[in-house]
């Protein structure tokens, strides 16, 4: 599937990952690239964009053994954006799915 198309959806996926817990960049990158076929490097530009849009903030946290990790957490704006976009996307996906199924059945 083309990457440009996936990018908007990936933002939503990242927000959903941060809804219940704060995560660091590598964790997000691993989680996403295991489930969705994208280059590992694509996640960081998305995180940066979310940050410059004010949807997430970052903080550094010292971990035992290793460099400090940069954690991402949702801001209030990020939370409300996620709620709105999530509902909108699910609705959209449902419509697309039913449309695709409908037209597929007609042909067969």
């Amino acid at each position, binding site marked *: 599937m083309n990457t440009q198309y996936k990018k908007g959806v990936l933002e939503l996926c990242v927000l959903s990952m941060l809804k219940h817990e704060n995560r660091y960049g*590598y964790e997000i990158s691993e989680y996403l690239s295991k489930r969705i076929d994208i*280059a*590992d*490097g*694509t996640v*960081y530009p998305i995180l*940066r964009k979310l940050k*410059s849009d004010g949807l997430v903030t970052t903080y550094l946290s010292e971990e035992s053994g*290793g*460099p400090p990790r940069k954690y991402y957490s949702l801001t209030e704006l990020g939370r409300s954006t996620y709620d709105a976009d999530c509902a909108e996307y699910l609705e959209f996906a449902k419509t697309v799915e039913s449309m695709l199924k409908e037209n597929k059945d007609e042909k067969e």
Partner: protein
Amino acid sequence: MKKNEYLAELKSELKRNNAADMDDIMSEYEQHFAFKMADGYSEEEIAAKLGTPAQIAAQFDSAKDAAKKMTGTNIFLKLGLGFTAIFEAMFYILFLAWDIVLAVSTLTFGVLGFCLVSTLNISGLIPYMPFLGSLILGISIVGLALIFGVASVYCFAFLKQMIRASVRWHKNMVSASALPPLPWSPQFEPKTRRRLRTVLLGAIALFGVCFVLAYIVMALQAGALGFWHAWNWFV
């Protein structure tokens, strides 16, 4: 590609794209390498899975644009927009004044027309005029009031739309996410537009016909072309 090779190339690509916060971005990718290597991947594998440095750097473009918009040129842009806004506001106030003139004219002609038709002569302001002439002249003045009414409605809609369009334009100049620009001329519903046009054409016809008719009727009633002299209006 080895780790150091990859990072060096990424750095030069980022520099070429003039990305904001380069060190921050670089540290993110350095950490990525560190974590992946701790998980047992080879440097080459990690680099291959990341995507080419050029591809990665290109994706930071938008971040750079956003950052640039928020600083530097923004001060001059805002200053310029502020100046434009002052002149725009002056123009809009002038335009509003013009629209108020139109609205007051509508009201004045409406009252005058009504007075003439109903022969209501408030404190003797209207000079002598026989009833038939006054009735027809009154109708023509009502037509004139309608013309001004339509003009003032149109001008008000125009002013409103201009202000909306310019607010949208100002917003688009400073914010990264641009909304489509608005048209500057008023956008009436087709039904409203047809109605306004019908009223305007009807009013022009009514005014023209009745005004000429009133003159003829009064000239006949007075037995003189300059009936205002015959009735001593200006004495």
